[in-house]
């Protein structure tokens, strides 16, 4: 049995996995398991213990129709191909426990999920903007975000920052 299968069985044995809430298939991984957001840190500790490294985390907008964010974590090992996907459905308004105490790089991935989706993480050392400018007040990877982001350089794309009524603007509006 491969390391990923062994670990996945271990997670099941410890009662950390849950029934899949979605039929959405995943490929390119050796094993895949669904967990409850509350057990993510315990899962991470088990993975670290078993010699896995933190490969990636993907947040997916499933607000319409499920009202959740899907989190897809992948972990892997150096000695054999053992990619293990850990998936969780995180309800929109509940904070997800941060894995940053177990895997350092999780802190950056979680900051990304926060700034791009508005998903909060509990026990995070520094949940602030990572890639977007500080004070950004929109979450651009949400499916509901379709407007061009407001630009500090170019107001022509931003309706709320339209110039005060001038003769020119009126001419265009009625023309």
């Amino acid at each position, binding site marked *: 049995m491969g390391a990923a299968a062994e670990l996945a069985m271990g997670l099941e044995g410890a009662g950390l996995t849950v029934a899949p809430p979605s039929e959405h298939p995943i490929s390119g991984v050796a094993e895949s398991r669904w967990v409850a957001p509350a057990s993510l840190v315990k899962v991470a500790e088990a993975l670290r213990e078993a010699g896995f490294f*933190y490969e*990636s985390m*993907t947040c997916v907008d499933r607000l319409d129709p499920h009202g959740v964010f899907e989190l897809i974590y992948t972990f892997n090992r150096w000695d054999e191909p053992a990619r293990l996907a850990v998936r969780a459905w995180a309800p929109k308004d509940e904070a997800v426990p941060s894995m940053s105490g*177990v895997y350092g*790089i999780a802190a950056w991935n979680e900051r990304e999920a926060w700034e*791009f989706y508005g998903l909060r993480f509990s026990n995070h050392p*520094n949940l602030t903007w*990572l890639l*977007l400018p500080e004070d950004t007040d929109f979450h651009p*990877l949400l499916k509901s975000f379709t407007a061009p982001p407001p630009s500090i350089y170019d107001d022509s794309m931003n309706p709320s920052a339209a110039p005060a009524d001038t003769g020119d603007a009126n001419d265009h509006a009625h023309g």
Partner: protein
Amino acid sequence: MTTPTAEPLDSYTLNMGPQHPSTHGVLRLKLTLKGERIVGVEPVIGYSHRAHEKMAENRTYAQFLPNTSRQDYLSGLIYNVAWVEAVEKFAGIAVPERALVARVILSEFNRISSHLLWVGAFLMDLGAATPFLYAFDDREAILSLLESVTGSRLTYATARFGGLSRDLDADFPRRAREVLVKLKARWPEFVDLVEDNVIFRQRTQGVGVFTLDQCRAWGVTGPPLRASGVPYDIRKAEPYGAYSRYQFDIPTRPEGDVFARYMVRIAEMEQSVRIIEQALDGLPEGPILTEGSIGIKKRLKLPVGTLYYAVESARGAYGIIIVSEGGSEPYRAKFRTPSYANLGVMYDVLPGTMVADAVAVLGSVDLVMPEVDR
């Protein structure tokens, strides 16, 4: 935001970057120093964020092709091929033998050119200006060769679902072998110029050691991981494309320091040459693009599902995660970039080193900031 706390008077903050010659791109490091010793570091990134992941959701799979090579502009061809192969795997598109082998040849040339640029720029950081000229001379030969096939020198978009946009011409193997001869003649010069240089060794040996525990916590991959003694290379661990056919070694070093990372990259270039030679010897004849495969003008729809596709870029393990809802655009595309993790490890590695060594350590991981920021 964190609340400012009262700090002992003997420590102070130094901003390195965002415009600093040694960061090779816009990276800002907030260093907390005691004298010249670093006690804390906070990398500030995002200066070259271009929302590739949002763009992917608003483009068809084919329209996203030019974006791929703009993530890591030094090994863009590898990223371009990775996107195409991920979509091919997802959609079940067959690729002709000739295209598979040609992709390996072009990707490995791209890997060498990326490593050469790193050698030049890294040694320049350490104060050695001469190797830069040698490295760029060789890199120029590779870029000209790639340009003759792909039409571009930096941001390649030559791969197509089902093959390549253009075939290798009849004269290509001869020109490629000429470049290889030139490259192989250069290795001894690098040994004389750099490896045996006392100043270089003093600046790099025992500096910026990555431990295996740190590598695991931060997801370090690629040459920095191999320089810490782990023979992990996606080309061997999860062979993709035509890689399983070729004999090559995974160079490793046990030390984990800056010097080891230099030695690993030099040895990797030699292995890439080995792969290219074998691929040129066995270059099959035949079509370069699957007949009737999905061309760039057709709308391609992928089945519902999520796919993780990994390749070995010049910097480490690059992962593409495509979430499809059955449409002609990705529902979500995520890029796991190696430099992101290789920069994160600085939180653990830089504290305890001197400011001057920070330049060497940072240079040795070969960061490409647009790849970190996407």
